[in-house]
């Protein structure tokens, strides 16, 4: 077994008595691309929220490398290398694509540093490179608010890439995309998964099949099954609650 990058143990959170995630154990290895699937309300998004600090769990532990993420707040978690993409694309609409990528770059996140920040050549190169990867090189000067839904999804992935995270948490990255865009995104994810770990929440089973190394199925806040795509798809319990007969 290769090295673990993320370990989530006995994680529980309840909202007004309703346990959205219930005693969950979840491990991600280095360089792994994991897909998390499950019916609505299974706790998928809540799981990501707890890893990235958006929601505080009631019990359990979340460790990323040597950091105890439960003691840290959102921007600290981001700074140690966890990137989060939200379900509805969250980009800075009033800034250009270039500016969106630029401020996502991890250097100079303090007051004085960002006030007197000088853009260096290597940053321009990095922005160009990421923009090309996310298929947005032609629209760098457009305001992000003018992009199509799919392009916003790509931009948000690009913003994460600028952060150089070791763990990417992607919540429904292909929602609202055309078939062609989905293919491109699958290629993109396969390409960027080299050298980092990615957790993807997705409903589109064809897409999951294209990218997943391993699939985790959640149901009612608990782990239902885990394994390769084929194992999971032939699992009786998974078919019962999620895939259907």
């Amino acid at each position, binding site marked *: 077994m290769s090295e673990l990058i993320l370990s989530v143990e006995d994680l529980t959170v309840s909202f007004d008595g309703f346990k959205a995630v219930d005693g969950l154990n979840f491990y991600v290895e280095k360089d792994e691309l994991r897909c998390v699937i499950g019916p609505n309300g299974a706790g998928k998004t809540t799981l990501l929220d707890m890893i*990235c600090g958006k929601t505080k769990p009631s019990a359990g532990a979340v460790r990323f490398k040597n950091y105890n993420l439960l003691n840290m*707040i*959102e*921007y600290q978690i*981001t*700074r140690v290398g966890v*990137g*989060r993409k*939200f379900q509805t694309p*969250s*980009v*800075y*609409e*009033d*800034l*250009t694509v*270039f*500016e969106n990528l*630029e*401020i*996502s770059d*991890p250097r*100079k*996140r*303090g*007051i004085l540093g*960002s*006030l*007197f*920040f000088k*853009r260096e050549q290597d940053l*321009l*190169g990095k*922005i*160009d*490179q990421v*923009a*090309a990867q996310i298929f947005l*090189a*032609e629209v*760098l*000067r457009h305001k992000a608010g003018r992009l199509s839904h799919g392009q916003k999804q790509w931009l948000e992935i690009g*913003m994460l890439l600028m*952060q150089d995270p070791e763990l990417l948490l992607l919540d429904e990255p292909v929602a609202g995309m055309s078939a062609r865009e989905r293919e491109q995104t699958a290629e993109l994810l396969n390409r960027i998964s080299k050298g980092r770990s990615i957790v993807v929440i997705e409903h589109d089973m064809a897409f999951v099949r294209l990218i997943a190394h391993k699939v985790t199925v959640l149901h009612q806040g608990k782990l239902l099954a885990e394994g390769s795509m084929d194992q999971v798809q032939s699992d009786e319990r998974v078919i019962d609650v999620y895939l259907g007969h």
Partner: protein
Amino acid sequence: MLDGVRSGAAAATASAGSMVSRDWTQKYGLLILAVLLLLVLPLSLGVFRLGLAAKYLSLAFCAVGIVLIWGYGGILSLGQGVFFGLGSYMMAMFLKLESTSADSSAQALSSFFGSNLPDFMVWNSVEMLPWWWEPFHSVWFTLPAILLLPPLLAFMLAYANFRKRVGGVYFSIITLSLSAIMSIVIIGQQGVTGGVNGINDFRTFLGINLDTDEAKRGMYFITCGLLLLCVAAGSFILRSRLGKVLVAIRDREDRVRFSGYDPALFKAFIFAVAALFSSIGGAMFTVQVGLASPSLVGIQPSVEMVIYAAVGGRLSLIGAVYGAVLVGSAKTFFSENFVQYWLYFVGGLFIFVVMLLPDGLAGLLGRVRARLAVKRAPTSAPTQPERPIGETGIAK
């Protein structure tokens, strides 16, 4: 594929040069303002009217700050009068002590009280100068205090609130209460603050007689110089990486945390900058008008400052200066001619601007420009009526 990468590189380099499309009004806006303030007004106005202009320009400092925090930071402060008042009162304390020490009747009484007491303290039977007045004997304490104390207070107040994620309308209410509290405290503690009359009757600043025409002109130019400096500093901030992060925070504060920034720190910083501007404005106001008054720290003046920024255009630093001068002049005109209608006029103006000109006069200028551009080049690509950088809509 390679071509795509290369043209992307070109686009990036080009966009790095001028991130925001800047036309002549933006490029030369500061220059035009400087010419107006430093040449046109002094040459065309008499000393009395120039003094009025100086008064409005002192208030323009607050409006420029409000553009930064409201237009770009999304923080609607209804308490800029507090910081204006702090600067104003600190300057007034210094001037009062200087005037008192040169006053022969106060000197005659000083054997009673141990030191020269400002006249209003004597009238209120205060027999000793309060300890916190003492440092204001020194100009070397007063001037740094005007520049440091209000921003420091603003930063601490704002950071404490924003860190706990108190924001939006709740923060507006807090600032509103602060300005109410400050004016109530000043009025209530008449013996040490001058009460509702404020602090007035100054004669000199560092020995310079303030009543001469030369001194008045000189102070006018200093005010203009400082104001232009503040506008320039503001636009430097907005063009920096910090300015972009600020816009990002205004539009999607929650997302910014996941870009690795601490939004509370950035919001508190820009709030402190606005407080600094307001404090400088307050100090210049007091030197020129010869008065520090609770009527300039309360709710009404604080709200009027927001109106200056709204009329000028809440996304335009330069517009804020025009807004302050125009609304200020209108106020003088109305209160000279139809005293009782002034408040209705302000209310009407605010409604008009919010409903019809959400980006104020600067936004109007931008719209006219965009229309002209379309007329001039009807075949070229559709011109986006790009506002400087910003969205419409009041206080998010």
